[in-house]
């Protein structure tokens, strides 16, 4: 069977030449993206879904006298390219000029990042099924059932414009996630990497299975403030709600919790955060939605909010330097840091547990939503492995808690940090960050399982 082939840099240039033939705009930009992605899904010790998709899009932005618009298609024949260019032109021309719109950027230079691994791109359905079978066999041996996913894929993206900019990136992605279910308990583990060879399926299964076993026959505790140990996935899904606010435009719009707080000591001195797409555990393209290369930006240093990120447009508006974090234009959101690295410490989760007289160990969180946008109060539930710690040991499972917790307060009460690692959750984009031991975490309700 012929395998899907990513659009090459040369073919991107050829497509853009055809775009320009149909465009009479002052400026023209093309965003070309595509790839192939496969996902094997299992539950009840059975593969119940198994899917593959392949596709490409051509997204055109034209500019006519300060008026701009975007049109997108997934067809690359001449008629479709002509139509998508005309669609963009038509929508652009029906607007009033925006005097703040900047000319498109010219050529950019930066060292590319290498995140394409043939072993991931070529992973077969049979190989994924064998990985799943390994999980299922562990589950069966332990009287549990397994549910989860094993996915892999390869993707490319390129941006070209009539000012001569051309940037191109390709990468691979793989992910394994497993939930082990006992009679009245569950345990979860997940990992992802550009290189599937970094995913240890057996270790994930054993970890999830051990959590399910330890949390059997959970007991109900009173919801109140506890010392918590948040595993990296739990930290990730919480702090993910912070970073869309580290945007110049969000502050300009007064929708950011950092409005009026830049330069303040907002978090504890042990909290330092950067956006760094070049970190070896990071993923993604080293350029933004306009093709500007991403700079490494220290966002928080020893608890003090030092910087936010800026697209070209926002940088002009706020008299700052662009950092290469803009979304494709036109958009309402401006920019956001998407390659977060939170500095870690040297305490393992086991060390944290050993030093805790009474507390809660949290594997994973669920359905987190923002309650208060300025104090960054979030609500959500624990899930799939929540344990009572007593006298330095995770003793037993407990019924899951609801929390209502300010992130500003939480990051001011971090007592210990684990080593920074690549973490994957379900509610935020992947980051590099540590496990955290936090005092006075605010649990407010308890559920029935």
């Amino acid at each position: 069977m012929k395998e899907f082939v990513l659009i090459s840099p040369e073919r991107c240039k050829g497509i853009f030449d055809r775009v320009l033939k149909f465009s009479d705009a002052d400026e023209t930009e093309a965003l070309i993206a595509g790839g192939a992605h496969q996902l094997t899904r299992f539950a009840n010790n059975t593969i119940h879904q198994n899917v593959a998709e392949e596709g490409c899009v051509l997204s055109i932005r034209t500019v006519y006298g300060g008026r701009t618009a975007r049109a997108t298609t997934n067809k690359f024949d001449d008629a479709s390219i002509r139509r998508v260019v005309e669609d963009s032109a038509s929508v652009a021309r029906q607007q009033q000029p925006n005097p703040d719109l900047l000319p498109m950027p010219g050529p950019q230079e930066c060292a590319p990042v290498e995140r394409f691994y043939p072993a991931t791109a070529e992973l077969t359905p049979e190989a994924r099924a064998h990985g799943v079978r390994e999980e299922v066999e562990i589950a069966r041996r332990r009287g549990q059932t397994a549910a989860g996913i094993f996915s892999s894929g390869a993707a490319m993206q390129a941006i070209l414009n009539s000012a001569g900019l051309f940037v191109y990136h390709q990468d691979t992605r793989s992910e394994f996630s497993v939930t082990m279910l006992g009679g009245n308990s569950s345990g979860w583990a997940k990992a992802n990497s550009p290189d599937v060879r970094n995913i240890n399926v057996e270790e994930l299964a054993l970890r999830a299975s051990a959590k399910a076993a330890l949390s059997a026959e959970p007991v109900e505790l009173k919801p109140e403030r506890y010392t918590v140990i948040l595993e990296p996935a739990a930290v990730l899904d919480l702090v993910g709600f912070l970073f869309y606010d580290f945007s110049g435009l969000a502050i300009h719009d007064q929708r950011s919790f950092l409005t009026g707080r830049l330069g303040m000591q907002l978090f504890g001195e042990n909290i330092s955060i950067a956006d760094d797409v070049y970190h070896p555990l990071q993923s993604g393209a080293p350029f933004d939605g306009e093709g500007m290369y991403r700079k490494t930006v220290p966002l928080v240093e020893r608890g003090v909010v030092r910087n936010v990120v800026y697209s070209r447009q926002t940088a002009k508006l706020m008299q700052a330097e662009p950092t290469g974090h803009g979304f494709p234009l036109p958009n309402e959101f401006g920019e956001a840091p998407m390659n977060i690295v939170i500095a870690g410490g040297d305490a393992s989760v086991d060390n944290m547990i050993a030093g805790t007289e009474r507390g809660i160990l949290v594997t994973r969180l669920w359905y987190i939503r923002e309650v208060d946008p300025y104090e960054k109060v979030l609500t959500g539930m624990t899930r799939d492995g929540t344990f009572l710690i007593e006298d330095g040991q995770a003793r037993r499972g407990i019924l899951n808690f609801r929390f209502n917790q300010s992130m500003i307060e939480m990051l001011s009460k971090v007592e210990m940090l684990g080593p920074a690692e690549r973490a994957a959750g379900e509610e935020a984009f992947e980051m590099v960050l540590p496990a955290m031991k936090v005092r006075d975490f605010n649990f407010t309700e308890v559920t029935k399982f």
Partner: protein
Amino acid sequence: MRTFADWALNRAQILGATYADARVVDSRERYISSKNGKVGQASVSDTMGIGVRVIAGGAWGFASTDTLTRQAVEQAASRAVAIARASALVQERELALVPEEPVEAEWTSPIRTDPFTTRVEDNITLLLRVDAELRRVKGVTLAEAALHFRRQEQLFASTIGSVIRQTRYYTGAGYSALAFSGNEIQKRSYPNSFGGQHQLRGYELVEELRLVENAPRVAEEAVALHGAEQCPEGVRDLILDSSQLGLQIHESIGHPIELDRVLGTEANFAGMSFLTPDKLNSLKYASEIVNVVADARPAHGPGLGTFAFDDEGVPAQRTDIIRNGLFTGYLTSRETAAAVGQARSNGSMRAEGWNRIPLIRMTNVSLLPGDRTLEQLVGSTEDGIWMETNRSWSIDDKRYNFQFGCEIGWEIKNGRKTRMLKNPSYGGITTEFWNSCDGICNADHWVLWGTPNCGKGQPQQTMGTGHGAAPARFRRVKVGVAYQT
């Protein structure tokens, strides 16, 4: 479209598939938004492709492509069969589907004005008029408005002989005003949060919403919230407006009745459900005045869950979910219906697009109207809180413990709405909450809301669902829960 589907089905059968279906989908969208006096987004997009779902070796496989050549479509079908045979390596039980009759049909959702015939320039003018009205109110710091149109043409064909063409038009419109002051951001949205109202209609929806006329009130409320009292913490009677009640239905009834969740296939991601099969026809889900249906039929209204056939080729149906408080029905598919011994699917399988498989999704899960006027409902409440327009929403992964925050509240004292309350929130346990319902407004107050952003599945799919509701009262509910310290 038929040719593409035939290529796929023929190829799948040649390779030994015992069942196959193909969906060819051609979608077009327009999204125009404004922000603080300027155009925010201005975009159009189209996407077309084919998804092929097969059973081979007793297991499922699916593959999709947007290259609509014969070679590419046949390769997608071949890949689907190969994937199914890989799935067969890890199976604990035999896959079975309940029978379904073949059908040839065509259906287009009724509209008065095709939204794509309206001029972008006029769309922008409308949004900027709304924007100007919102920002005319001193204290509004951010005004955002948007229009969203979609047309989706789909051909479904299957190896049982069904060929179904459906075209669905979707329109969405709404706006919000944010007011930042001191240490607080307050927000009001119209006619609902989540981008406003969304229905299976044409541009006539936009015209009926009276967007400009409502903007001054919405903006004034956003600013006034800064001077309002904090919602108290305690136990109160609670009246929810129909939009918040729509989301309450979505989260605490719509999701737990999805039979795939009940049977465990979302255990790793979207979660499971407390509604285990032993509870069917035995659980007192709600008080006796509560009647909930899942109704995909056009007769129910132009909801985001309205269609003629689902994405397995099963006709749209109405299913009683809660009858006089008793739990009576799930949302099912051909596979899950077979798994629990039911004779037929009730037609709840939908896919986001050509590159996704159908999953069990809510259709229009609606609370049927009661017998109260709004005046009667409020007038008979001695000490309560009215809450309106969702601001935050969260529920555990088996759908028991929920917490919602709303944009605005009003205290009700002795049968009258009195002072405004900011940051209102409430929480509870699903069945306890629904059993505390003692008053539902009548059909005059019933609105079929659209929830455009329901996420489920891996790869994740976003689906629109419909929820009809009229304001209703719930006794002795925990309020102010989100700000407990």
